[in-house]
């Protein structure tokens, strides 16, 4: 945390913030040194070789190719070094740690809607525990937004029709700004919110205080029956539709021989456009649910389907994701 108190730097409140800041400060210092060297050379030449008489002509200078090759290769090596460092940091921000809690984020003109695994819903405010990895599954209901928390150095676009994931682990309690970073229309600059980071005990208390009747997965289960998904997708299926237990995150063989991982995006696509990628051994008979489900409802179903995975192993109910 040596870089925590530099001027013109936002607060560091996540586990990866210092990694990004170290890389940033290093490149700033390196760039400054290189620039000053070049400017010093320019100024030295300007003073030393200032034109003395109107007729004066410069002296042609040539160097062997070695000079050109040197100043081609050295920057290339430095830049590639930066690439590797930058890629390492990027992969750290990209790869969600095992056991992270899943929160769903839906952007909409002009608000952020959040769903906790416990079922709590919030708008433009998100409460999370300190010291826990938090996974965000982000989408949008309308145009592209971008979920940005400067103090966490976290940013990910909310793209309609697909899920992106981001994660953070807050390192200190407090309240931090959420901004929309992708231009989204008239009130783009008002699409802001706050993340409140709490001690785990306080967070539990807050959750219980506002606890809704059902967890997210339980809402999904109810929806699963309400929309009659269960008439075909049954554990004792008569083979009209694939069994969903344990399907989340597994590899699925498709009609035509391709294989696909049944991740968030595939499951969403299968609900909206079922005929697109049909599982091998089944007929494309599922109707589309496009326009019949809100983004939040799709996420509830997702949460339910994900919970079925653990149901297979533990025999537990929908609360498995908690």
């Amino acid at each position, binding site marked *: 945390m040596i870089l925590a108190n530099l001027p*013109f730097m936002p607060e560091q409140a996540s586990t990866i913030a210092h*990694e*990004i800041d170290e890389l*940033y400060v290093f*490149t700033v210092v390196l*760039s400054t040194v*290189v620039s000053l060297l*070049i*400017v010093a*050379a*320019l100024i030295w*030449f*300007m003073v030393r*070789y*200032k*034109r*003395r008489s*109107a*007729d004066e*002509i*410069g*002296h042609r*200078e040539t160097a062997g190719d070695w000079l*050109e090759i040197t*100043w*081609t290769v050295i*920057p*290339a090596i430095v*830049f590639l070094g*930066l*690439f590797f*460092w*930058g*890629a*390492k*940091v*990027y*992969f*750290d*921000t990209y790869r969600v740690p095992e056991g992270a809690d899943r929160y769903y984020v839906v952007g909409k003109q002009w608000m952020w809607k959040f769903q906790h695994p416990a079922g709590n819903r919030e708008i433009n405010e998100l409460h999370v525990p300190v010291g826990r990895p938090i996974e965000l599954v982000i989408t949008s209901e*309308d*145009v*592209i937004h*971008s979920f940005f928390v*400067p103090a966490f*150095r976290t*940013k990910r*676009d909310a793209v*309609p029709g*697909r899920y*992106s994931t981001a994660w953070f682990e807050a390192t200190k309690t407090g309240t931090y*700004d959420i*901004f*929309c*970073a*992708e*231009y989204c*229309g*008239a009130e783009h*600059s008002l699409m802001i919110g706050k993340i409140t980071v709490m001690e785990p005990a306080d967070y539990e208390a807050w959750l219980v205080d506002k606890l809704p009747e059902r967890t997210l997965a339980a809402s999904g289960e109810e929806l699963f029956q309400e929309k009659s998904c269960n008439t075909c997708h049954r554990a004792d299926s008569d083979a009209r539709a694939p069994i969903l237990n344990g399907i989340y995150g597994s590899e699925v063989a498709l009609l035509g021989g391709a294989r696909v991982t049944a991740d968030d995006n595939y499951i969403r696509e299968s609900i909206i456009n079922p005929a697109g990628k049909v599982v091998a051994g089944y007929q494309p008979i599922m109707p589309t649910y496009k326009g019949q489900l809100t983004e939040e409802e799709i996420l509830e179903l997702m949460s339910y389907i994900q919970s079925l995975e653990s149901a297979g192993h533990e025999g537990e109910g929908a609360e498995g994701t908690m």
Partner: protein
Amino acid sequence: MNPGPGQKEQDMSSTAEHQTDAPPDYLNDGYGLRSWLLTTDHKRIAMLYLMSVTIFFMMGSFFAALIRAELVTPEGDLVTPDMYNRLFTMHGVIMVFLFLIPTIPAVFGNFFVPIMIGAKDLAMPRLNLASWYVFNVGAVLILYSIFAGGLDTGWTFYVPYSSSYSATNVVTAAVGIFIAGFASIMTGLNLMVTIHRMRAPGMTWFRLPLFVWANYATSIIILLGTPVVAITILMVGAERMFQLGIFDPAYGGDPILFQHLFWFYSHPAVYIMVLPAMGIQSELMAAFARKRIFGYRYVVYSSLGIAVLGFLVWGHHMYTSGQSAYAAAVFSILTMLVAVPSAVKTFNWTATLYRGSISFQTPMLYALAFMGLFLVGGLTGVMLGTLGIDVHVHDTYFVVAHFHYVMVGVTVSAFMGGLHYWWPKMTGRLYPSFPSKISAILVFLGFNLTFFPQFLLGFMGMPRRYHAYPVEDWQVLNVLSSAGATVLGVGFLLPAVYLTWSLFRGKRAPANPWGAVGLEWDIPSPPTKHNFEEDVVVTHEAYDYDARRDAIAAAAAAKQEADLV
């Protein structure tokens, strides 16, 4: 151009020239509107383009001034959010599509590429004139969409906002950009064919001035890239009208597909703006150090390298879009590679000053400003290409500052440098030196004051395109930025005054006011209609200042001998 009063001496001398049956210069070869609007002379068309782009630059600057005025306070209290969104869109669309992309190839490329290669005109003079009309038709449509209701998509036209949600004139603007793109293609094609086919005997590829090479590399990008963006923007318009389902997921489209198509052109478009500017920079460094550009061949190779690699890096605009981390890594590594040729150019320009004979006339001040601004713009580009940093600063003022350092710091500096360098040749008039130097210094200082604070704001987290900003601590830096914009504005207004003045009252320019080497300096100022009265045969490489030194020495020796006798 009619000579103004108070120029009697020069007038008499030019009359004397007429008596020797010298052909009239291109400005006096025909008068009246018709002789301009139907001209096929590349020099006159360049002047027409210069008028058009100057008007668009002033409009774009006016919108920028309003943006900076709004951001002086954190509250959005000057204009409504809708108006603010229209302002930054108009600023971006006009500056990118109607100024930065066409300006250097269509004005200076048009005027000087034929002269620099010893040709009498471009290969296709009528296509050249047509391009100016097509450009203006596109521009009129874009301006129409702006003034009849506005446009609020940002210059990037991201879907589905532009295709389904914006309530503004997206379709008209899209058609305008589509049409203006054709003008770009016509100019690029014309320059490319001209450079291939019209070089004077002896003008081999490696004798070409670097400005010609830069326009050649730029033409490659224009020809390969422009059709892609033209179709992409047109598809946005079509999706708006017919709900086609190309980009909007509500109709089964893919919004990320738009970003791929858009940046496949719009990243190389940065090099359309920057490469010709680098070409001017090479001309200026050579002319004002009176010395062949250092590492000429490597500067050529780096231009071609940029033209090719520039097509492979578009994904670095999409690190946060949710594209796969491996795709992002590939784009990042390629971005690092495209930075290398720019570094090579910088080192060669710097080395050009070594043992030069450096004078600090106005164009050189712009060239030196270019060096400083390009260093900042280029190195912050490397920072943005670095994956770990980009995620945090993407879509913040850091990016805004970076691309202004590149587009304004590089392209506009070079445009101003080129304008001051070639003005005597183009108009036959000299401009006053003192105010032009003041303006160059004001532009440099004002520019840095405007945009440097934006780097800091960006890393602190201020997102771009915010009408009001929620963090009051950001105000000081924003006020600095707006103050800088005022200085910058004065710096740009001064040339408008003294250059206009010089058109009518400026001293007559000699053929070679800078003592520079190049075919354009061997012919009168302004040039005659066909540039060269005799066929040109090139026997020297570009920037052959050694030959100039020998000539001066020979003349001095001859004079000494004459004095002795």
